[in-house]
């Protein structure tokens, strides 16, 4: 009998600790599938960030360095500069990447560092218990915006993909979602492309994945999935904003 579905080799057999309905498990799997696709497991170094995704070293069967909050892109730059024949990726949430780590990701992108960043945007701080993130939508309630995010006080939700696509350095900048099977298929393709960019030496690749946080949104998994379509995608539109076909030659 032909086996049609199995755990990627780049994943360990440890069960996820994530909450029911959280998308981290799906995104982890898509990254692992991309590593498997190019047979990269034994030459990959993951950089864990701070937040729910810090435990990625429990789930990925690759070498991992744990970065300080927000600094994953800088840590990855350091590793990649020494081991430029290895594959280096970071996996960061929106609090980590779009608030405290904004400078690090922008400059890694601008340098065109040949690394891959998976940016999981669930519009809230998950691990610390549901505080407002830079990506929290207007009107969205969180423990630190109990009356809803107000642009007069808190500004607008930050669009990292659009910001990074404006830079010359990146080879691929894209936003995907995993709230429906169709979107998962598209996300799988884009995440694979992102690692392909690195394999081919084309430089910085960045994939933003819109993700749920049912626990801190106070929603059922199904309602959270619906919210991605109804509230997040309209503000954070899906699509590839930048893709280089060739290595830059200056």
């Amino acid at each position, binding site marked *: 009998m032909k086996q049609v579905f199995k755990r990627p080799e780049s994943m360990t057999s440890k069960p996820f600790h994530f909450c029911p309905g959280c998308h981290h498990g799906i995104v982890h799997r898509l990254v692992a599938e991309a590593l498997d696709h190019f047979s990269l*497991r*034994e*030459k*990959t*170094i993951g*950089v*864990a960030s701070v937040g729910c995704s*810090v435990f990625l*070293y429990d789930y*990925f*069967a*690759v*070498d*991992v*360095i*744990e*970065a*300080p909050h927000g*600094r994953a892109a*800088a*840590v*990855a*730059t*350091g*590793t*990649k*500069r*020494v*081991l430029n024949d*290895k*594959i280096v990726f970071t996996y960061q949430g929106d609090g980590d990447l779009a608030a405290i780590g904004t*400078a*690090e990701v*922008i*400059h890694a992108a601008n340098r065109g560092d040949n690394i891959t960043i998976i940016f999981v945007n669930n519009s809230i701080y998950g691990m610390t218990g549901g505080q407002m993130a830079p990506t929290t939508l207007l009107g969205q309630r969180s423990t630190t915006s109990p009356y809803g995010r107000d642009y007069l006080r808190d500004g607008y939700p930050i669009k990292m993909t659009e910001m990074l696509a404006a830079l010359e350095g990146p080879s691929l900048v894209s936003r995907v979602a995993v709230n429906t099977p169709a979107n998962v298929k598209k996300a799988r393709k884009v995440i694979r492309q992102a690692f392909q960019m690195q394999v081919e030496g084309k430089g910085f690749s960045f994939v933003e994945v819109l993700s749920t946080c049912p626990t801190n949104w106070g929603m059922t998994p199904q309602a959270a999935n619906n919210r991605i379509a109804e509230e997040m995608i309209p503000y954070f539109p899906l699509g590839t904003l930048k893709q280089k076909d060739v290595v830059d030659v200056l």
Partner: protein
Amino acid sequence: MSKPKKVFTKGNEAIAMAAINAGCRYYFGYPITPQNEIPEYMAEHLPAVGGEFLQAESEIASINMLIGAAATGARVMTSSSGPGISLMQEGFSYFAGNELPAVVVNMSRQGPGLGGINATQGDYFQSVKGGGHGDYKLIVLAPHTGQELYDLTIKAFELSEKYRILTLVLGDAILGQIKEPIVPWIPEKTAGDPDRDWLITGAQGRAPRLIKSLFLADGEMEQHNWHLQEKYERIERDDVMVEEVDAEDADLIVVAFGSVARIVKSAVTQAREAGMKVGLVRPITLFPFPRKRLFELGDRTKNFLVAEMNTGQMVEDVKLSLPGDCRVEFYGRPGGSVPTPEDLSSIISETCEKLQI
């Protein structure tokens, strides 16, 4: 044997030269006065030896790039001065938790705040007490001449690898800018052991490895801290460095480090010529502090004078090290204006008079 070749060079360049000769091939840094000759030298010379210089967007980025590079086992370095070193404190704490080796140079300038660009020793507390969070130590080396800047930079790489610890070379604006002859040399070992069982290199044919500082399981963090403390105790036992000048028979021992110690050396010579039995103890390692040696000396000599280019920092460690019946005087000024040998000679004479030596 041919005579060792001397080169006439700035202190900052001596450090950069030593780092490259010690096998450092990756440097990440951000400009700040008075240490810019270090990144500039690295930018010019690292490509020729197959290395890479990268100018980071901030000192926060520099120290984190250093984490990523150090995890691979490569010899790596960054340098800065007070304000930049303050930004790196977060990274220092992670280096301690992660147990990664690397070298950081602080060519300190006056603080607090933006301060000034002249020499100071006001970063002593930050260096030896830990400016970052948690219960940790760095190895802190305090050179006092151009040659020693060179020698201790090489030593810094060796110690950092021996203990998997961040090693700080603490100089100041004077040491960085002063130009003097040094004799460069190349150490036997210019790379860490490639077989170390923690190096992050990609899990080829082996189990995946992890560099981390997060320990959430019950008792795990306490255990990790005890492990770190045991390491710091070994460092205190095995790797204290101290220079003594006429200390054995002295009636007054001056304790000073770095550029001030160099000035004190002249003052001690003047004092001896004037018939006063004065000696110098110069801690070369600020952590591990030579407390055991000071305690021994304090058993015989009861009078001490601590001279620093700050308003009183190392003096606390001297007092904690000495037997309770020792008298400890302090001379300090907060940097910017450097005491002359004559200033220190007068202070020594006044101290001798005051203590009726």
